[in-house]
């Protein structure tokens, strides 16, 4: 039982977090709260990627100890070997002294964090504009105002046609 929790527990909590974000996004009428829910959802995706990148017994992907000295000595042939023998690349024969976690998901998430903040900024700018145009940031009130305006236009349309 403990083994299953150890292996999969992260995914379960991350899914719970993701669903919390989704729930906030669905349920909230307030547009800023909705954006906060979106960023909770987004962060849970980051957590998922970093969970996948973890290697047991590994450390942060910053080379240390023998890996640096050894590579410095035969830098050229090492790079050549890695480029040529791709079959050797996977699994145990890594040619590294220490175990490191996978750097690739880290890089992807670095990019995603910055992109997430950019989209958040655009969303907040839209909320500020909605507030200026409607005087409220509650989505149901915005919808009510939209319906009122549409109804008023409907009422006006026959009168204008009659005038022509």
């Amino acid at each position, binding site marked *: 039982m403990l*083994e299953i929790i*150890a*292996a999969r*527990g*992260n995914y379960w*909590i991350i899914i*719970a*977090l*993701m*669903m919390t974000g*989704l729930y*906030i996004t669905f*349920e*909230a*009428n*307030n547009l*800023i*709260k909705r954006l*906060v*829910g979106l*960023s909770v959802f987004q*962060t849970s995706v*980051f*957590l998922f990627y970093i969970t996948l*990148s973890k290697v047991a*017994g*590994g450390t942060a*992907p*910053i*080379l*240390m100890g023998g890996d640096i000295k050894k*590579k410095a000595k035969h*830098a050229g042939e090492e*790079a050549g070997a890695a480029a040529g023998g791709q079959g050797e*690349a996977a*699994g145990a024969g*890594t*040619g590294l002294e220490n175990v*490191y976690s*996978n*750097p*690739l*998901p*880290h*890089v*992807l998430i*670095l990019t995603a*964090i*910055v*992109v997430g*903040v950019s989209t958040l*900024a655009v969303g*907040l*700018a839209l*909320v*500020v*504009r909605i*507030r200026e145009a409607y005087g409220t*940031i*509650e989505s149901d009130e915005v919808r009510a105002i939209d319906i009122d305006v549409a109804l008023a236009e409907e009422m006006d349309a026959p009168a204008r046609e009659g005038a022509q």
Partner: protein
Amino acid sequence: MENFSNGDYGLFLANFLLLLILFVVGVAIARIRSLFAIVMLSGVYSLVSATWFVALDAVDVAFTEAAVGAGISTALMLGAMLLTARTAKAEKRFSRIAPFLVVVVTGAVLLYATADLPALGDPNSPVNTGVGQEYLQRHYGEMGFPNVVTSVLASYRGIDTLGEVVVVFAAGLAVALLLGFGERSLAESIRNGDEN
């Protein structure tokens, strides 16, 4: 569990504890109506997740999340809050049932899918045997400095980062076009000046 050597147990507990804190903060965000508290809690959420990133070896992600996620986005949300409203209106009771059902069903489907995911820390999972390992091996000979994430970000996947810069530029442009460069507040002050 056999994937973890003894030294990893403390880390492992920290991992679960931090995730539980994140969950509590998430639920609190869902229940609170004061926007100021919501924004501050989302900052707390970002900081706790940054701590969690350190526990799972993603140090570069951790400081980006702490600086950008907890810093800049909290500042942005505070600014937007000051320009709009301080509290959220209470939702109607029955309007919570439908989203809750959708979320429960989606969560159940996702939980079902976790059975196929690799175990935490599995070194032979598809994620960890691919190109990431090759970056680790080639990196020092080609770049000559120890941080692998830097070289992947700036060199091996430099085009990705260029795309990110394009997105940030487009977002900055969109915000500038939406909010203007101060013309509207200028127009308002002129209008007020005419009235007086």
